[in-house]
């Protein structure tokens, strides 16, 4: 009986393997002629789809443009789009499908850290490449991910000194949503605040999605702070800014300086509530260069919406495809290992300016910028770094330009 059963299991496993591998092998043989498959993995349904759909659109737009200009090494890119459905487990399944069945050499995707962490083991175990376009908390060092969004030092190292020296505000009230990103941002902020001679009076958190800000805003009012550093994310942002206004606080006297409030949240809360507040990002829709104005124009045409907004992660989703193309062309072949070697040091003129992938930690050099929001829902860039700065994913733990924890050799965990 047990023997029979074992045989049966063996057979069905063999059938299963044939079924799973067969079409995959066949497809890879056929497509070798003229096309390169790449994975595109974002949430197209569920709560996060509002943002992630736009990231998928930007990725597809870049692929479209590359194909229209002749493709990569004479081959067209064929995007295989999968839906992560705002759910970490679905992300994991879809990533497995792209890596194992479709055998793509690279996946462009993921927005939240939760989804990235969920797919990371697949890319590491199968030695595949993920291009990740979101600003995130750092504290990660994988040779299978190219990080094109900002890490904390690229949003804060110009921001905090600017708040202290230019705005003349010295007492910080740090407030954030209660999960890893705001907590890491707060850690880095405190280091920078102390280095620059400021002080922080409170460091407070509210659960994700919290929408009753009455008590928190009243604590802000009575804390004696003169600036609020906000790492609040998602729909809470809107309730926060509105309550701030309702309690009679103004951004002239007590500005909210945010790290994650982008064009999307500003549009959702009503621009008049945010007018006068600040945000730090490497990219804003309002960057007034021909390159960016063209980009916004092309994006609006691509999604057929004349009022579509662009923001930081969306721009990264776009330019990372070009960085990938250059890496493939430099390497001369389309395998994950070749792409990893090829991407090191790649430079591209993105809508926000020059971006370069760091050869050591595979994060990206970006130019920090500070914008003040106007009554029209657009930021006015009032400060920008003269040049792109080096990404330091472990800055909260003492990493500096000359002393990297994360290098091509991997993470030096003795330093943590």
């Amino acid at each position, binding site marked *: 009986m047990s023997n029979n059963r074992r045989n049966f299991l063996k057979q069905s496993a063999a059938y299963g393997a044939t079924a799973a591998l067969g079409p995959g092998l066949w497809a890879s043989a056929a497509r070798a002629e003229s096309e390169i498959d790449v994975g595109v993995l974002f949430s197209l349904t569920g709560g996060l789809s509002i943002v992630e759909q736009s990231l998928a659109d930007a990725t597809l737009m870049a692929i479209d443009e590359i194909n229209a200009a002749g493709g990569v090494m004479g081959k067209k890119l064929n995007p295989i789009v999968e839906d992560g459905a705002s759910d970490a487990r679905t992300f994991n399944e879809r990533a497995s499908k792209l890596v194992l069945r479709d055998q793509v050499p690279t996946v462009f995707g993921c927005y939240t850290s939760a989804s990235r962490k969920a797919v990371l083991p697949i890319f590491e175990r199968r030695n595949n490449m993920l291009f990740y376009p979101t600003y995130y908390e750092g504290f990660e060092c994988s040779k299978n991910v190219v990080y094109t969004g900002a890490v904390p030092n690229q949003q804060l190292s110009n921001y905090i000194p600017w708040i202290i020296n230019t705005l003349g505000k010295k007492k910080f009230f740090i407030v954030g949503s209660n999960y890893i990103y705001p907590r890491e941002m707060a850690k880095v902020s405190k280091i920078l605040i102390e280095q620059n001679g400021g002080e922080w009076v409170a460091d407070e958190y509210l659960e994700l999605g919290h*929408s*009753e800000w*009455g008590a928190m805003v009243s*604590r802000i009012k009575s804390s004696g702070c003169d600036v609020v550093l906000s790492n609040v994310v998602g729909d809470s942002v809107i309730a926060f800014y509105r309550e701030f206004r309702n309690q009679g606080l103004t951004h002239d006297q007590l500005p909210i300086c945010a790290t994650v409030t982008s064009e999307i949240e500003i549009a959702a809360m009503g621009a008049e509530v945010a007018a006068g507040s600040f945000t730090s990002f490497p990219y804003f829709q309002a960057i007034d260069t021909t390159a960016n104005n063209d980009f916004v124009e092309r994006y609006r045409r691509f999604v057929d919406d004349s009022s579509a907004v662009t923001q930081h992660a969306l721009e990264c989703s776009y330019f990372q495809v070009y960085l990938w193309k250059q890496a493939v062309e430099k390497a001369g072949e389309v395998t994950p290992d070749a792409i990893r070697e090829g991407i090191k040091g790649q430079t591209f003129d993105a809508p926000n300016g020059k971006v370069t992938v760091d050869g050591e930690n595979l994060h990206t050099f970006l130019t920090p910028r500070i914008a003040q929001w106007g009554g029209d829902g657009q930021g006015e860039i009032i400060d920008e770094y003269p040049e792109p700065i080096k990404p330091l994913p472990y800055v909260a733990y003492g990493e500096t330009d000359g002393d990297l924890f994360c290098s091509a050799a991997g993470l030096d965990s003795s330093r943590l």
Partner: protein
Amino acid sequence: MFEVLFIGLSLTSVLLLIALGLSITYGAMGVINMAHGELVMIGAYTAVLAGIHLGFNIFLSLPLAFVVAALVGLLIERVVIRRLYGRIIDTLLATWGVAIILQQLIRLEFGLTFFGISIEGLGPGLQNMRVPTFMMEPFDLMGLSIQPYRTFILCVTILLTALTWYLVYRTAIGVQVRAIMRNPQMAAACGIDVRRVSALTFAYGSGLAGVAGVLLAGFRTVMPEMGATVVVDGFLVVVVGGVGSLLGTILSSALLGQINGIVSVFSNDIIARAVVFGVVIAIILWRPRGLFSFKSR
């Protein structure tokens, strides 16, 4: 101190606003209405849509949202709930299903997204309702800083509570409602049209949820999922107050609102939430039927 009490008071008014409709549908009719939060959401979206497409301000949106939510409530009662009276656990499951349907209707723009049509103000994204500027600027009254919007919510809540009290305790239909609460069979035997009165009661409770939605839209984020947290708060208040008791609902929202306000001002919101849940558990252990209760069906 006034500021702290005012925060508690405004939390109270929001809780009461949410719980008022629920105390009627749950208390009076024995229906665990999981879709109550979604009726609040529909009220909020009514205000957003009326603002965008009809140019309505908040004052015009309030009665409109009452009517829209009441009609949706009536529909839910006619289609689902009237088949489930007396089966309390089944109403929970069925109305939960209704809640999911309502959420998805908003997210999929009533299915129009499948045809590539998009209506401004619907969809999965975040929306907001504009509040007139004069309601956003606080003013000083005898040295106290008054927040007009919160005060407005407080006034509307008091008004609606008074109206509900009047309807339930001073009108003929209120007598019928209370009779049905105590004993539906006996009420029917006395010639009360239980089905009709129940349907109207449910519609009224739903309408109150719609009004709550408009007021919440002024300071919270409007999105398809906004009802989920709302319904939890509502049930907390109703269960603590005692099912079917208007006075209990008022007092328990005051209690929970003030505890939440005071603790969150002096420590933080997360601890305040934990303390509130602790108090709720203690009260339910001490008085399983809530602060005020009477024997009912």
